[in-house]
């Protein structure tokens, strides 16, 4: 492996983190908070660490292959989280480094799982940083770098593929850099739109940014203990709508921009996503009707929670821990499915679920008619066997990973429901689970070891397993291949 190029690229990435810290810094200075100093120190640390890494690993050969792409992605995310946790620790607002790391990983991976028991006591600068990590992690750290700075190699597609979620990652335009730019521009415009709509509903600038970042990255960090419950129905509807919007494949927005509407409206994944959402909203609304005074309220709460879970955001307007089991079960299923590939959401992705379903149907048909020949079609095109087996393998690994992590945290003194949904909520980057980690609870009760395990789970989920797995496997690091 081209180790030097891997480290060199990661080193460069750290400089981006220093730049990103400018937003919380400005916020802290604006509100005259003392957390400005920890942020400044962290910025300096990021720049220095970056320079140091770049200095010791100047690559002779800039060629990278998919192996390097995976490792660069995994390492960058880990380094970003390690350094991004510093302001919380230095300012003593989250005294334990493990806790701060968990919180930062949760931010970058757009999980939104928190160890904080009292969000409202945090300084605004750090709250801004916490939510801003959602925004950056949503579309991707490396994709952002690709959009703003030319990379020293032509083969950046490997990095993009490692970071972008979904079974098949394609480009919108011939150049990776242009593709990254287009994605970020769409992302930025949608975020600004949401901020404007939230401001119109009476939120302050600070609040609207926090919630817009949380929605855009499908993260779920807020600035109040009751998440979104205290806001007006209008604001809740705006956030519901944007959670839906950010759960759609961004390629479709580009296709709409270049006026290829036919392609947008014939997207199988989009319609399946819409179908899943509508069905779940109706089912849950009927199920919880008795708990609310009006039907409108039931629908609003049902829609908000469903969108929040399926887009893997994790905001809440109601404590769904108190809902009937039927509703909770639907939410748990939605956690695993997630939203569309190519969006900022986590989970298995709708497209994978559809492909798996179709592949299973074909296999069953084959059992009945052993000689039958059929092809699995998705988005109107026949799927290659490679893609299908890739999706099946991914699903197998996904399930295996979930159980492995579930086993690792099984010593915790929580009930089965809490532990199992903690794993699902972290792995699928949702945030809140059920039981003690429900919307009203937090992950604070877990031990340090479990917090690290769950942090890894979040990274595995966000980067779709393989990059993290490869970065941890010694055979990838050997010089020979």
């Amino acid at each position, binding site marked *: 492996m081209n180790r030097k190029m891997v480290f060199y690229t990661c080193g460069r990435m750290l400089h981006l983190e220093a730049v990103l810290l400018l937003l919380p810094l400005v916020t802290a200075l604006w509100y005259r908070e003392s957390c400005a100093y920890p942020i400044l120190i962290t910025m300096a640390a990021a720049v220095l660490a970056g320079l140091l890494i770049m200095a010791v690993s100047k690559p002779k050969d800039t060629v990278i292959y998919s192996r390097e792409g995976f490792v660069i992605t995994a390492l960058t995310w880990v380094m970003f989280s390690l350094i991004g946790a510093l302001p919380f620790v230095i300012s003593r607002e989250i005294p334990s480094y493990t806790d701060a790391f968990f919180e930062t990983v949760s931010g970058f991976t757009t999980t939104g799982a928190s160890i904080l028991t009292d969000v409202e006591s945090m300084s605004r600068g750090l709250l801004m940083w916490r939510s801003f990590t959602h925004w950056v992690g949503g579309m991707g750290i490396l994709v952002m770098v690709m959009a703003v700075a030319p990379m020293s190699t*032509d083969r950046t597609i490997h990095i993009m593929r490692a970071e972008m979620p979904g079974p098949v990652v394609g480009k919108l335009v011939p150049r990776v*850099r242009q593709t990254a730019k287009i994605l970020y521009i769409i992302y930025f415009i949608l975020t600004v739109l949401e901020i404007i709509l939230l401001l119109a509903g009476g939120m302050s600038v600070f609040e609207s940014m926090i919630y817009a970042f949380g929605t855009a990255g499908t993260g779920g960090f807020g600035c109040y203990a009751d998440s979104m419950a205290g806001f007006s129905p209008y604001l809740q509807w705006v956030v519901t709508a944007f959670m839906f919007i950010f759960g759609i494949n961004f390629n479709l927005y580009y296709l709409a921009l270049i006026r290829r509407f036919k392609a947008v409206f014939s997207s199988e994944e989009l319609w399946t996503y819409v179908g899943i959402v509508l069905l779940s909203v109706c089912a849950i609304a009927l199920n919880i009707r008795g708990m609310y005074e009006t039907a409108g309220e039931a629908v609003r709460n049902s829609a908000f929670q469903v969108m929040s879970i399926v887009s893997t955001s994790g905001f809440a307007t109601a404590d769904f821990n108190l809902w009937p089991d039927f509703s909770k079960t639907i939410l748990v299923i939605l956690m695993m499915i997630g939203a569309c590939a190519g969006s900022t959401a986590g989970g298995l992705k709708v497209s994978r679920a559809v492909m798996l379903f179709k592949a299973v149907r074909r296999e069953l048909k084959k059992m009945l008619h052993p000689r039958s020949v059929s092809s699995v079609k998705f988005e109107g095109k026949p799927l*290659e066997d490679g893609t299908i087996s890739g999706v099946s393998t991914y699903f197998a690994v996904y399930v295996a990973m979930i159980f492995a992590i579930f086993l690792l945290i099984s010593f915790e003194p929580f009930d089965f429901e809490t532990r199992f949904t903690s794993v699902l909520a972290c792995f699928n980057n949702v945030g809140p689970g059920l039981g003690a980690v429900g919307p009203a609870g937090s992950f604070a009760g877990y031990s340090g070891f479990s917090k690290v395990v769950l942090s890894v789970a979040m990274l595995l989920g966000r980067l779709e397993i393989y990059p993290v797995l490869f970065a941890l496997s010694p055979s990838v690091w050997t010089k020979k291949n």
Partner: protein
Amino acid sequence: MKIVIAGCGKIGSSVLASLAAEGHDVTAIDKKSEVISELTNVYDVMGVCGNAVDCDTLSEAGAGDSGLFVAMTESDELNMLSCFLAKKMGAKNTIARIRNPEYNDSSLSFLRQHLELSMAINPELRSAQELYNILKFPSALKIETFSRRNLEMIEFRLGDDSDLVGKNLLEIRKKYDAQFLICAVQRGEEVFIPNGLFRLEAGDKIGLTASLPEMQKLLKMLNSLQRQARKILILGGSKTAFYLAKMFESSGNSAKIIEQDEQRCTELASALSTSTVIHGNGAEQELLMEEGLGSCDAFVALTGMDEENILLGIFASQMNVPKTIVKINRDELVALAHKIGIDSVVSPKEITSNILVQYARALENSSGSAVETLYKIFDGKAEALEFRITGESRLTGVPLKEIKLKPNILLGGIMRGRKTVIPSGSDTILPGDRVVVISSNNRLGDILDILA
């Protein structure tokens, strides 16, 4: 510029690589998904898997708003049709590979006109032309001709006993009374654009510009002039072999072609007149000796297998054939062939890429004095370009010594009417001239790009 390339076989993918390296936004179309995934992994391009004459595929690849559409599939007919469709969809320029000799006669201009092709490209014919040029002037490893044929650039390697070894360029210029200029030197992997104090060493490969008579004069003085090849032996009855034999016939010489496939032999024999076609396996050395390898002026290996070409090239050199040229398509093998002493190599891929790179650059700089001819020389590490000076500019009418050029740029020659000027500090460039520029590490699209 947006470029769409349909068909990414050997030639297509090499064209794609050069155009992507030029900084164009390239989209590739191929019917094989493995090819597409391989290309998108290695180059920063977009891939569309599908049929190049399917309108949906073409529109998905954005053929309609492309600046240049290139069709390089296996089949001439597919290329013509897909260029036609792309043009109708709105592509500004279209280039099709058309290599069947039946289309390359008088019907070509009709086809081009009615299919609205900007260019029809025939890699085999171009390769044959390059081979023919070298065979006419076998002292050169390679010969690059510019538009009016009164200035050429030849590449040759300095042997240990060459008179030029150990001298710097000023001394060489003083010593030999001929109008020439050494413009580029390749030593090992590195390429230099030399100045007057640059000292030549044995084993250097040098690029030299001069008019043909001056070149002959110089080589005569250096005792390394070889006479034109008249009797040649061609191995492999490809289209290139056919075109080359045809050129030899029209200049009154004879060529002998050895081909394995009997039916192809019959086709060749009926299409050619004075050439001899031999049916047999050219890899058998016995057959080669029997057909007069020992007595021919030149041996040209044109089979479809690079390795076979190289091996038989080595064999021919050992048999003291005065000139051996081999066709090699894979870049990595070209470097290998140089290492084992096979210097004259023709690569259809490279020839085609050069033409397309030149065409794309000229399109981008169509306003000023755009590039008219472009050659990548010395394994693509340097370029020789020809520009036509259209009007007055900062370059014209000023003595060359007062013009500040970018580093690694050299004026190799000026063609003025029928006259060739090998430039010195006191010469000037005038409107209407054609100028040959040698450069490395620069990407020149317009003549004014050479100014610092």
